[in-house]
């Protein structure tokens, strides 16, 4: 794994807004159907999407390539919906990749549902700009703090997020009691200062 939180190519756009190379590419695509910008974006994100598809190794290389195509095509088609005030480009691409993978898993399991993964994301356009900014900041903070997590916690988070395993599946694979997995996830999430309602 590379160092998390390493900032790449962050600069200040002429508008005075802090931005990054990938957000700029998305904006170029949305405004000018810029294929060169898309190619740069592809070269950066496609290998990450493929890594995401293959982690947990339940997906064949052919399906992984299919997923890369599907995600990148969606990135092109939906670039106009990307809002740099709301999220980092990587968050936006990750969300599309996660949704496409969930749908693909369901398709492969011949699982016929009227719901697509993107239907599960609540529309948050009504959210206050302040809340949007907070969310974006928390993303930056989380990226920086991930590097300091103990290895056993990072390992389980990777199972849950990269491999898309439930807590129970992660416990079975790591040969750990379910309670241990749950408490490691909870500890990691608390260390990353994610706020949540206690129940």
């Amino acid at each position, binding site marked *: 794994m590379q160092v998390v939180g390493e900032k790449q190519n962050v600069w200040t756009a002429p508008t005075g807004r802090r931005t990054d190379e990938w957000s700029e590419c998305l904006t170029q695509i949305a405004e000018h159907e810029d294929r060169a910008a898309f190619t740069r974006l592809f070269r950066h994100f496609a290998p*990450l999407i*493929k890594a995401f598809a293959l982690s947990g190794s339940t997906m064949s290389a052919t399906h992984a390539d299919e997923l890369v195509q599907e995600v990148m095509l969606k990135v092109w088609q939906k670039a106009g919906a990307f809002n740099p005030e709301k999220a980092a480009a990587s968050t936006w691409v990750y969300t599309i990749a996660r949704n496409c993978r969930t749908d693909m898993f369901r398709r492969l399991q011949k699982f016929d549902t*009227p719901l697509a993964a993107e239907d599960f994301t609540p529309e948050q356009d009504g959210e206050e700009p302040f809340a949007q900014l907070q969310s974006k900041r928390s*993303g930056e903070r989380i990226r920086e703090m991930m590097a300091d997590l103990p290895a056993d916690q990072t390992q389980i988070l990777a199972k849950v*997020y990269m491999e898309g395993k439930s807590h129970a599946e992660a416990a079975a694979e790591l040969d750990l009691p379910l309670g241990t997995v749950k408490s490691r996830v909870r500890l990691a999430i608390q260390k990353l200062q994610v706020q949540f309602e206690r129940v």
Partner: protein
Amino acid sequence: MATFHPQLELLTEHAAGSLSVAQSACVAAHLNYCAECRHSVVQLQNIGTALFESADPVPVGDVLLNRVLARLDEEAPLHHSSPADQAGSNATPALLQRLMQGDFSDLPWRKVTDALRITRLQTGDPNYEFALYHIKAGGVIPDHGHRGSEMTLILEGGFSDDRGTYHPGDFTYRRQEDEHAPQALADQDCICLAVLDAPLRFTGWKYRWMNPFLRLHAG
């Protein structure tokens, strides 16, 4: 504003995309009512982003790039209208509206007891039943245990049980060992969404005879 929320574990699995369709739909419906949990899910997705960004890249050849470039002029497939911007409102979540394809009154309700009617919605989930419960004002769902897990989200009215009083947007998750007898609030019928992976088990003498007839209808 909701008082009862999904556990962190459920929100995390929802954010990571590993929760089953039926359960994820129930959590998503809660998010519709709850700004706090929406905010948590955004942060939980940021953990996913951080892991995604720091993954060891797997090389992708130019063949694939060219294949995608050749497809850029394709028409984007039409997706049914995405959930309207009604997050935070108390209207029935758009996700449910789509599964219902109509109003509560249009659904084929089946009578279980004098106070309880049930209708099932199809999510395609092979393991979980996804049903709406209609409890008459003041009516009780007979004392029952859970052979598996039971997720409940209040949509209209409310009910109370040994843990508290639930209003629209409130979420509960009961496990096998829990027994309760939810009673609808006196002044209004209660409609709630219930997601189960095993049929209920009535524990009171009056309804115990029904247990052999209670079946799970997943799908």
